[in-house]
């Protein structure tokens, strides 16, 4: 290949060479020989009425799906719209549908999901598509509010601290479900959300469950009424897809079953 100059140039050359099928050994740094593979990535473009557009992306050894989307937007098509923030698996903003399953793209290694060097990346299901990989999260958070997923306490700063023992049964229930960051993966994965437009969904119900078990909360009666019925916890058919897909390993299915029991008790007591 002749004289290739400095390391940076060689690396750039290696990335461009990635489209070739044979490995290229550079005399100064053989370790920069590129992986002779590309990913064929189909990405959703447009709104509800859109389609999948194909891109060829260099495949690297350590690569997340977010890296792939970012590469496309920076190098191949600047008009691609997508969301991300922390890119380290804390914020949940980068959630998308990867090969049909909702995931955090920053925490999804290409090696784990790209069978035959292909990827299909689409916006989260069950939410209105604004553009490309960006969905309107408003319905998701509206239902959170409808489920009365907000804490309502009675104490003021003048009162004593509430005492909540961490190993009490109720607090254990809360702790198992409290880490939800509202990423929308569970909501996007739930078929009942798709079949029943009014269904509040796993995240909203899971949050309601944490508050039902919060001994400091005073708004339980209206909350149980809000989560009951055909659009509430009773619509859950225990598909358990939400719990399967939750990146924080929360089981909304468990909380929803708990809500069914709590509502039944409230109904018997005439509190509903």
């Amino acid at each position, binding site marked *: 290949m002749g004289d290739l100059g400095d390391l940076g140039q060689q690396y750039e050359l290696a990335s461009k060479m990635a489209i070739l099928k044979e490995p290229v050994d550079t005399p100064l740094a053989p370790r920069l020989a590129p992986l002779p593979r590309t990913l064929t990535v189909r990405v959703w473009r447009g709104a509800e009425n859109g389609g999948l557009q194909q891109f060829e992306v260099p495949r690297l050894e350590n690569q997340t799906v977010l890296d792939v989307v970012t590469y496309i937007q920076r190098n191949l098509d600047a008009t691609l719209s997508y969301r991300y923030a922390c890119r380290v698996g804390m914020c949940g903003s980068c959630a998308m549908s990867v090969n049909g399953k909702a995931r955090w793209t920053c925490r999804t290694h290409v090696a784990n999901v790209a069978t035959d060097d292909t990827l299909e990346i689409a916006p989260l299901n069950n939410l209105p598509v604004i553009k490309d990989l960006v969905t309107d999260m408003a319905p998701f958070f509206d239902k959170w509010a409808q489920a009365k997923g907000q804490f309502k306490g009675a104490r003021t700063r003048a009162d004593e601290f509430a005492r909540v023992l961490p190993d009490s049964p109720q607090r254990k229930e809360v702790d198992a479900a409290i880490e939800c960051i509202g990423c929308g993966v569970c909501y996007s994965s739930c078929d009942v959300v*798709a079949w029943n437009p009014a269904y509040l969904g796993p995240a909203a119900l899971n949050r309601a469950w944490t508050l039902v078990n919060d001994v400091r909360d005073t708004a339980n009666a209206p909350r149980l009424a809000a989560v009951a019925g055909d659009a509430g916890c009773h619509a859950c058919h225990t598909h358990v897809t939400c719990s*399967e897909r939750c990146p924080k390993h929360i089981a909304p*299915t468990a909380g929803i079953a708990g809500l069914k029991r709590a509502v039944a008790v409230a109904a018997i007591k005439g509190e509903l």
Partner: protein
Amino acid sequence: MKNDSRARNHPAYWAFIVHRASGLLLALFLPFHFWALGQALQGAPALDGFLHWTQQPLVKFGEIGLVILLAAHMAGGVRILMLEFLAWRDWQKSLLAVAAGLSLAAGLAFALNVV
């Protein structure tokens, strides 16, 4: 946009499909079942006439299917009752395997007896 089969490919979802399909098929079968038994109102020979019709191999095969559907729907239903009314435990995934096993056992026992 809605989910496709890639998101649904896990055991608890298959259990849901079996439960819903079996319930629907059984609900459709029931009126026929009630009519058949109602034949006894015309006396034993009328009921015997119907039972003779059920001797055909295809009908026998259907009956075995019905027994499996009934056992599966019941076992799946008991699993749901346990998931909803007993507090969440880790072994509940195995309930699915137990339910499936029991249904097949029931179907097999019926098949062995009726053939």
